[in-house]
């Protein structure tokens, strides 16, 4: 009976993942770091650290969706890096993704050595959620806390890109 239950559970969760939105699980921060290092010099990536259990994070997700829609492409990427627990993948994380159908790339970072990897994201970050890091031209800018609205997020990103003189190819009118 227990085996039957287990099999049906696995089948159910498997089908959930298949039907649902794509996401990647990184068990080690180095996997995310490698992705960052592989970015081309002209690529900008906005990394939002969030979790389904974090109220202000979920509240600001639409801002990152709008950013993806307005600027997203090979040279402008938005990664939503979730700190949800892997053990609650089926119960909490996948249902959330199915319900919200996010456009930005979703990554679940399950590396438990937070004290080791948090400073690798940004030297000033101590781990509070939500937080956002923009990476471009080898430079990084950190926002600790929620963006009030899309305009605040947009000007944060564009302002940073101006300072790294990467404004070419990213007009304020957007790519569409």
């Amino acid at each position, binding site marked *: 009976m227990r085996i039957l239950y287990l099999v049906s559970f696995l089948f159910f969760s498997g089908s959930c993942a298949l039907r649902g939105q794509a996401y990647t699980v990184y068990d080690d921060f180095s996997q995310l770091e490698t992705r960052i290092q592989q970015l081309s010099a002209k690529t900008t990536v906005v990394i939002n650290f969030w*979790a389904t*259990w*974090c*109220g*202000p994070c979920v509240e600001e997700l639409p801002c990152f969706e709008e950013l993806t829609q307005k600027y997203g492409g090979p040279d402008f990427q938005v990664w939503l890096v979730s*700190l949800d*627990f892997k*053990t609650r993948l089926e119960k909490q994380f996948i249902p959330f993704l199915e319900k919200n159908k996010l456009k930005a790339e979703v990554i679940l970072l399950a590396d*438990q*050595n*937070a*004290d080791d990897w*948090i*400073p690798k994201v940004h030297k000033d*970050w*101590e*781990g*509070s*959620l*939500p*937080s956002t890091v923009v990476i471009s031209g080898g430079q990084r800018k950190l926002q*600790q*806390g*929620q963006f009030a609205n899309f305009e605040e997020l947009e000007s944060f990103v564009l302002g940073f890109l101006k300072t790294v003189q990467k404004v070419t190819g990213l007009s304020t009118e957007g790519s569409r």
Partner: protein
Amino acid sequence: MNFPVNALVLLAGIFLLSNAPREPQTYVIGDKADDFSLRNVDGRMISLADYPEAKGFIVVFTCNHCPYAQLYEQRLIDLHKKFNPRGFPVIAINPNAPEIVPEDSFEEMKIRAAEKRYPFVYLLDSAQTVFPRFGALRTPHVFILDRNLIVRYIGAIDDSPETAAAAQRKYVDSAVTAMLRGERPEPDFTRAIGCMIKRRK
């Protein structure tokens, strides 16, 4: 004629100084923390000066609503039970504005403390003046002070939020144990995932 001009310059100087934007410095290791007076869930006002016998304090900014704070709740109870008899009580402070997080209201704090039988005080930073002074950013966020209120450790409770048993580095436990031996905590600063403190606008 000279005097009033000088006085004016002096006044202008005082005006400028008093209006200069001054970022309040948050504590780093080795700083002396200011005492505070905050209301406990039992209605009493609590200060660190109320503990003349203490060898130090495990000050933790925590709250009701944050899942990470909830995961560490039992570990805080265990830390207090272990170290309070040895002179290191846990002093829990809720830094969140209840207008933003209703679950973190004083009434809800009372309910939580009673339900979980907190053996430690659970204080509300109602004016939100204490947590910015400490430089607390998230819940849970620990600051260990010695008997002279010198900050000796800032950071996480351990390295395994989800399961206490899997912790490989019990930062707070090791820090207090070191301090009881008369040694400095190592490490004295760690980072961890947690919920951003909800600040009144």
